[in-house]
């Protein structure tokens, strides 16, 4: 099975939100979809599943074009489910009933929903009315409903919202398990480090298109990743080509930029001495790409003046549109969010 989106264009009046989007996703794949708020992630989902009119383009599943006819839309809806909004659950229904409802509608052959309940550790609350649930419980229920529907293609929008770390890990693991059943899963999430745990490929929406994507299997170039403030950059000079200096003072130095291991070791030690933050070696993760794409790279020239003075990507202004204040808020939060990928070597 494959999902192909061809020349997809969406506009609201004269405002073009997505333009000429093209991609193909094979089965057994989890795609992480990343973009700041308001860049069109949900619109992309809504367009593919035909929840909104599309101006141009084709939705092709397994080579079959699903047109805008009632019959085709219904056939498409048999193949695709969309992650429910936890605020829109039926308050007077129990969790089990919600799961059974999705099972009955999409996957009536499946008799046993208890397996799903056990798999997601929901047995303690799932027979209570939804109105008694916390945000995290609701979110897990929505995920369970998707599992019960068991469609070939699943769109998971903001799936990790409200989940505690244990449940984030649980859901991530189940995502990987169901992927192996031949699914195509697209996950939109702001937990960028978490996306690296289970996604096969990451799509970054920008400029109304899939601006950049990378396959995590082929993304093997390793970097030394650490933090260094602008005023201490000079201590690291000279830096090899392709070194990235990103917002939040994150620096990513390609390992292959050094000829000898001791040079690399020296840089690691230097970075550790320049900052209290953790230094690691690994491939560039979604977090680094996100900063690079949406916040732009900063100049590697040491800055003797006060302030950040980072170079902004030409597209950055149009994509993110952050005010300075918002940017500052995000900056401090991102420092917390930036996780070291499991595959990274830490120092």
């Amino acid at each position: 099975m494959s999902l192909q989106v061809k020349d997809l264009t969406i506009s609201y009046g004269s405002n073009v939100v997505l333009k000429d989007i093209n991609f193909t996703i094979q089965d057994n794949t989890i795609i992480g979809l990343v973009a700041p708020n308001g860049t069109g992630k949900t619109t992309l989902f809504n367009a593919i599943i035909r929840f909104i009119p599309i101006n141009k383009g084709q939705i092709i599943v397994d080579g079959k074009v699903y047109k805008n006819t009632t019959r085709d839309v219904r056939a498409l809806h048999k193949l695709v489910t969309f992650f429910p909004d936890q605020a829109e659950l039926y308050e007077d229904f129990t969790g089990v009933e919600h799961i059974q409802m999705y099972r009955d509608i999409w996957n009536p052959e499946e008799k046993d929903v208890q397996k799903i309940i056990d798999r997601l550790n929901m047995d303690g609350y799932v027979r209570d009315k939804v109105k008694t649930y916390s945000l995290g419980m609701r979110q897990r229920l929505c995920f369970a409903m998707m599992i019960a529907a068991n469609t070939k293609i699943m769109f998971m929008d903001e799936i990790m919202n409200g989940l505690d770390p244990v449940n984030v890990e649980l859901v991530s693991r189940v995502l990987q398990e169901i992927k192996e059943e031949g699914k195509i899963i697209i996950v939109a999430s702001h937990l960028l480090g978490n996306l690296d745990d289970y996604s096969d490929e990451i799509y970054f929406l920008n400029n109304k298109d899939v601006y950049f994507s990378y396959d995590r299997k082929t993304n093997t170039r390793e970097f030394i990743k650490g933090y260094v403030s602008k005023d201490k950059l000079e201590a690291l000079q000279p830096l090899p080509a392709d070194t990235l200096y990103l917002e939040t003072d994150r620096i990513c130095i390609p390992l292959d930029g050094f000829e000898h291991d001791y040079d690399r070791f020296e840089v690691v030690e230097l970075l550790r001495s320049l900052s209290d933050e953790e230094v690691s070696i690994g491939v560039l993760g979604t977090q680094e790409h996100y900063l690079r794409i949406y916040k732009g790279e900063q100049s590697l020239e040491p800055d003797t003046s006060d302030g950040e003075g980072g170079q902004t990507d030409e597209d950055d202004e149009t994509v993110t549109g952050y005010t300075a204040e918002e940017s500052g808020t995000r900056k401090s939060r991102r420092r917390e969010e930036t996780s070291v990928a499991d595959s990274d070597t830490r120092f």
Partner: protein
Amino acid sequence: MKLAKWDFLKIIRDSKSRVLLIGLFLFIGSFSYFYQQNEFLDLSDEYLSESHIYLDTFNALTDSSLATEQGQEIDRRLARNQTISGMLAFIIGQDEGNTVQDLESVVGDFVEQSMELNENVLFFYDQTDFPQYDALIRLMPPREVALEQYELYAYMAERGIQVDANQASPGMALYSLIQLLSGVFIIIIAAVIGADSFSRDQESNWSITQGLPVTWHRQWYTRTAIHWSLMWIVILVGIVTSFLISLIGADSTALNYPVPLYQGENVAYVSVLTYTVIVTILVMILSYLALRLAIGMSFIFRNIYLTIALVLMVFFIPYAFLIIPPMSDVNPLLYLQISPALEQWWYPLNTQLWQMLLSFAVLFIVIELVFLYVFTLIPTRMGKLERRRK
């Protein structure tokens, strides 16, 4: 079918639906009790006052007019009607049936005399060559009424039905309830029940109800069937409850008592039970159409008051047509109000049952065609319907 189960649960757990259905049951179930609390006219007095019509008419006629052979016959019949009116007043006042025990030979039979009375009135209308014709018929009940009354009593005579002076009998209470149901009442109930069927989902459960592999059209059918079934289970149980309550203390059900059913230019008398069955079936069909319309409109409008108002407007269109008389005999919407149609309010429509059923079929097709288009539109989260672009 699987979706129908969940739609049913959604409806039955909705507090608005529950309150409406319980309220509907209480209203219909208690109808006969409150109906029987009414103060009814004393039929005995009615008949007595009617006797003056014939005396006054006699006094209005000159001796010369009454001197002819024709005048003699008119005189005799006027006198007879005055006598009959008195007898009818006495019999009905005794409330023993068609006659009074031990006085049969004196007071006669109520039904037979009623037939004779109306036969005489019709006779007066036929005397067009009588010199004082206008004075003769001035105080008489209308010819159509006399004819209907004659047929009513002929029907009773043929079936041996006893006259029932109890206007609050279980049969009459049932008849009144069915007449109430056949009016705008049922349209209001249908409109209120169906007005938020889709809009509630669009407002509160959008992401769960979008993208189902079942067409909106199919969901429309399912929801209409569920709402309609629930509504009619409640109404039918309510009717039975009301009838059972009315039986308390009653000496007969009077379900065989005749009531008029207009068929074209003719009036046919049928039993209360037959009338109940015929009108209930018509109301069931009509309420299905009204529910269908209301539920369909709830897909378009999120404002339930607007939906209710629009559904009611459709069913009040007949009144608008009344002010354009030439339109009133061609407008199929006139059949949307069953009771007025059956009682010939829409003269000269001359309602036939098959015409009503045909009108319902036409309305069904019109609604179907309109919503075939509507359900190709996409309900967006913002509450708009957007056209799918090709």
